[in-house]
């Protein structure tokens, strides 16, 4: 069948190759997984089951159930983000849909979208599908992969129309402080950039509260915040996310959403209400456990001589492997049966690094880091 040029031109994800290599073996400990190893809190799961038993299987409002939007708005007060649940919140099928809708609602053909890298792999294709062009803003290991005004200026982002910000960051685990955001926000105001802030890992920060670019002065009106239930509530497979933003942006996104998705799936919306009402303690337990693993993994990599900065969020460490990251990852898998993802898969600035997910049990993390230490010694 003849395919559209648009579809044909989309590149294969660089992660695919490592997935296939890892799948070909059955003795692999994987530190390559980008989702929690916990299951969704049991209370949230029972709420989903209960909704099915009560026959709640019809569509919801396009924007998502009002009861859920109210709770989402209330939940975001903890990040000093204030949004009206009636017209500034849109519930989507995963945060991925929210990102896609934001691109389609905010990008005109020929627009330039600045994206800091290394970062999550879906923005480039999303921009391309919306007819825009990506401008890459490399972040640097010496800045602990934070986005700086200097990096934005050096890459020509002043001419861009939009900026994508993803902190806490996948793959680096980097976070941004309010001070760091202040200079990025000033740049966005000076150069009239709108922002899509993917904050899916906002709940998973260690030692410091999550900071959002949307709460810097003058930024709320030019920012769409994307978040969801996948990471904090371990609900990846339930596919539920949302966008928060000024009503004209959310209206525009909802116009597309109503034709393409109609509404986010109903069952997960019931689970999400329960998650927001009753699952803070379970989320905190997950955060505490991730934090213990994070410290262990970072200290073990530094001990074995792979320089690793202290990641402030998400569940990734980003050690410097001192050379060709793809070769390192392939040889490590071959020699020791440990899967990690080469940093270069995540774009400029990721080369020479490895994304190490610590969303796996402490026992496996210890075994995997022991094997990596052996590999590094013998290499």
């Amino acid at each position, binding site marked *: 069948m003849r395919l559209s040029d648009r579809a044909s031109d989309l590149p294969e994800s660089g992660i695919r190759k490592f997935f296939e290599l890892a799948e070909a073996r059955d003795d692999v400990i994987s530190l390559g997984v980008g989702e929690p190893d916990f299951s969704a809190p049991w209370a949230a799961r029972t709420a989903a089951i209960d909704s099915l038993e009560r026959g709640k299987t019809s569509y919801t409002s396009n924007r998502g159930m009002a009861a859920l939007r109210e709770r989402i708005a209330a939940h975001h007060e903890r990040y000093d983000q204030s949004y009206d649940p009636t017209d500034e919140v849109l519930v989507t099928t995963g945060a991925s849909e929210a990102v896609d809708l934001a691109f389609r609602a905010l990008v005109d053909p020929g627009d330039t979208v600045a994206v800091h890298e290394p970062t999550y792999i879906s923005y480039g294709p999303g921009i391309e599908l919306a007819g825009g062009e990506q401008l890459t803003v490399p972040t640097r290991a010496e800045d602990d992969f934070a986005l700086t005004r200097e990096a934005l200026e050096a890459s020509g982002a002043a001419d861009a129309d939009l900026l994508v910000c993803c902190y806490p960051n996948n793959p680096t685990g980097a976070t941004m402080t309010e001070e760091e955001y202040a200079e990025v926000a000033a740049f966005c105001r000076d150069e009239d950039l709108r922002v899509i802030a993917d904050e899916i890992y906002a709940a998973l920060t260690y030692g410091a509260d999550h900071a959002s670019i949307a709460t810097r002065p003058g930024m709320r009106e030019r920012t769409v915040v994307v978040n969801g239930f996948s990471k904090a509530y371990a609900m990846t497979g339930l596919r539920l996310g949302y966008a928060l933003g000024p009503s004209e942006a959310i209206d525009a996104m909802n116009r597309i959403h109503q034709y393409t998705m109609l509404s986010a799936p109903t069952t997960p919306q019931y689970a999400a209400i329960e998650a927001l009402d009753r699952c803070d303690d379970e989320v905190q337990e997950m955060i505490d456990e991730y934090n213990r693993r994070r410290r262990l993994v970072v200290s073990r990599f530094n001990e074995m001589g792979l320089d690793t900065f202290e990641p402030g969020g998400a569940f990734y460490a980003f050690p410097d492997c001192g050379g060709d990251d793809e070769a390192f990852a392939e040889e490590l898998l071959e020699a020791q049966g440990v899967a990690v993802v080469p940093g270069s898969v995540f774009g400029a600035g990721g080369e020479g690094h490895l994304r190490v997910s610590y969303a796996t049990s*402490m026992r496996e993390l210890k075994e995997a880091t022991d094997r990596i230490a052996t590999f590094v010694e013998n290499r």
Partner: protein
Amino acid sequence: MDAEREVLDVLARNAREDIDDIAAQTGLDADAVADAIDALEADNVVHGYQAVVDWDRVDEGKIRAVVEINVELDRETGYEQVADRIAKFPAVDALHLVSGDYDFAVEVLGETMQDVSRFISEQVAPMPEVTQTVTHYIMETYKDGGIRFEDGDDDDRLSVSP
């Protein structure tokens, strides 16, 4: 969170963590971890370290029972004195004073059901303060010490994902 609490949280999940790993997980140095463990033990916060055992999987395993015990107290004898006497029996694995319909919940371990029955009828029931016992044999244990007893590896996530 103070150092002792952080160390306690790690030990409560896995008492076999070595000091260096606890230090790595908590961000404390190894000496501070050792001091915290010493303090927890000295203050009787940590009374011991044990394996969580699924006795059903052990050849010649053990029988467990939960025994409800009601007691009658008098001027000279309070719960503390009765508890002290019950706790001294090696067959008593755990002993709790509880609210509700009975006074003590006792977890008893024995080699056989007869062992446990004999222990209750010959040692516990005859105690002058004990007015009633109800023994519940544990048929199956699904979770103990916060650990779900199952065969385990049901991680069905993709091995590598973005």
